């Protein structure tokens, strides 16, 4: 590659270019709505949206909605995630159970999660439970498969060593099984976190449970004068997505720094 004397410039110019593109997109948005190319009855201007966003950030409504969304997402992820780790580990450790149950899990993984939403709505109505159920259900199947793969991917040498050392039960699980499955679980969790957020928003939009999704819907239904609020809420949802995705990616890197080399080899669940 090039000489290292311009290393600083090299590091900074991409960041400058990125900032420039972000600024250009925002400016382009403002220009298009000011010039009338964007229909004012369906797109608010950038400045109106940002002003509304600032106002929303100071209002309690936005934070309540955000809290409701986060609560449903986190509870669902925690329930679905722990069940998946438990069931996945049990299935991964027993060959007979694995071979018997895997067709069911593989089938349910391909079922569009959303199919179950109308049922959840009839049973629980527009409640937190309904959201939690959808998220937990949607996260469970793909994550279980990841955990099974992870548990079964124990290095044969490590496994044989554990046998020779007569490691059993909890010690074997904590010392051998979990570390080898960890990268798979981490990848699965990162994907599950993002999917869970999408499912939370869908449950709020369609099921009418309180949260950002419902706020967006009510604000759209309130008509064109509430447009800036709609787009401000969409931006907030996007930021929530960024936070969730990068937080889990960072967590994965931090917890698994010792596993980095192996992580690149791990299939990403496709």
């Amino acid at each position, binding site marked *: 590659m090039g000489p290292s004397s311009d290393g600083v410039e090299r590091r900074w110019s*991409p960041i400058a*270019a*990125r900032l*420039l*593109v*972000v600024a250009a*997109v925002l400016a382009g948005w403002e220009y298009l709505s000011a010039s009338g190319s964007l*229909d004012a009855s*369906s*797109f608010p201007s950038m400045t109106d949206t940002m002003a509304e966003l600032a106002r929303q950030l100071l209002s309690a409504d936005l934070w309540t909605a955000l809290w409701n969304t986060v609560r449903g997402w986190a509870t669902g992820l925690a329930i679905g995630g722990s069940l998946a780790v438990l069931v996945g580990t049990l299935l991964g450790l027993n060959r007979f159970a694995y*071979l*018997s*149950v*895997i*067709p*069911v899990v593989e*089938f349910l993984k*391909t*079922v*569009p*999660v*959303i*199919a*179950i*939403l*109308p*049922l959840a*709505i*009839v*049973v629980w109505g527009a409640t937190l439970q309904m959201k939690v159920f959808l998220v937990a259900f949607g996260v469970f199947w793909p994550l279980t498969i990841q955990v099974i793969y992870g548990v079964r991917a124990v290095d044969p040498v490590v496994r044989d060593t554990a046998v020779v050392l007569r490691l059993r039960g909890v010690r074997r699980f904590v010392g051998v099984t979990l570390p080898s499955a960890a990268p798979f679980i981490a990848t699965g969790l990162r994907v599950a976190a*993002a999917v869970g*957020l*999408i499912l939370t*928003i*869908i449950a709020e*939009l*369609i099921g009418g449970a309180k949260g*950002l*999704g419902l706020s*967006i*819907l009510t604000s*759209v*239904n309130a008509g064109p004068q509430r447009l800036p609020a*709609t*787009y401000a*809420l*969409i931006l907030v*949802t*996007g930021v929530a*997505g*960024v936070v*969730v*995705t990068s937080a889990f990616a960072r967590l994965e890197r931090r917890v698994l720094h010792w596993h980095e080399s192996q992580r690149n080899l791990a299939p*990403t669940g*496709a």
Partner: protein
Amino acid sequence: MTGAVALRWVWSNVWRLWFSAAILVLWWVLSADSTSTFFPPLQRILERLHALWIVGDARRELWSSLGHFAVGYTVAGLVGVGVGALLWKFRRIGDAVSPVLYFVYVIPTAALLPAIVAIMGIGSAMKITIIVLAAVWPTMLNTLDGMRGVDPLKLDTAKVLHMSALRTVRTVVVPAAMPQIMAGLRHSLQVAVIMMVVSELIASQSGIGFFILEAQQRFAITEMWTGIIVLALVGSVLTVVFIAVERVVLAWYIGARAVERKG
């Protein structure tokens, strides 16, 4: 394969289905005289399913859904591979637009739904737009990643051999990136099916999502169950078809990996 070997092969795979069968039997037996409103007897669900979807004309809803899905998924796949390849080719531009792309990618598409409905109405255009907007990302990002992973040595070799750009892409880049592109397309497929249903659940007059929601609102729970089952089957049939296509497209790759594993 001789008859005996074939029989043994069938048996060694079929016995695994005992658990799936047991679940179905259990569902059938436990729900047989269910009086719960939400969980009608499986037998009644299947009878309704036959009457509505096989004899009746509920199938029309399915064709309407699948039409939108087919168009949306095809567009998402083509755009995803195309833009992914462009982002790879023009690395600096790709890097500069990455924050914006990333932001649009992480916005849960569902959040955009009401706004899209407000702009485009509830016709086919809206549904296809939603499917494309959500399903384009897995393919695009996987294409980009896959192409980035091409061995630089191979690219240099192609350069030394004075291969044309098109030939380099065809013979070096695409084969190397193909496994990951297919992984992206598979993920896009699942997203596209979900968004197909979501678009029908939120605002629609047709489609399988509309059928399920409409049954739910009439409190026709048995009919709702038939819709859920049909949707589940559609999702898995599409996945099975995709896997079959993948096996053909990636035959060389799967073969190579099997050889590697045998070592």
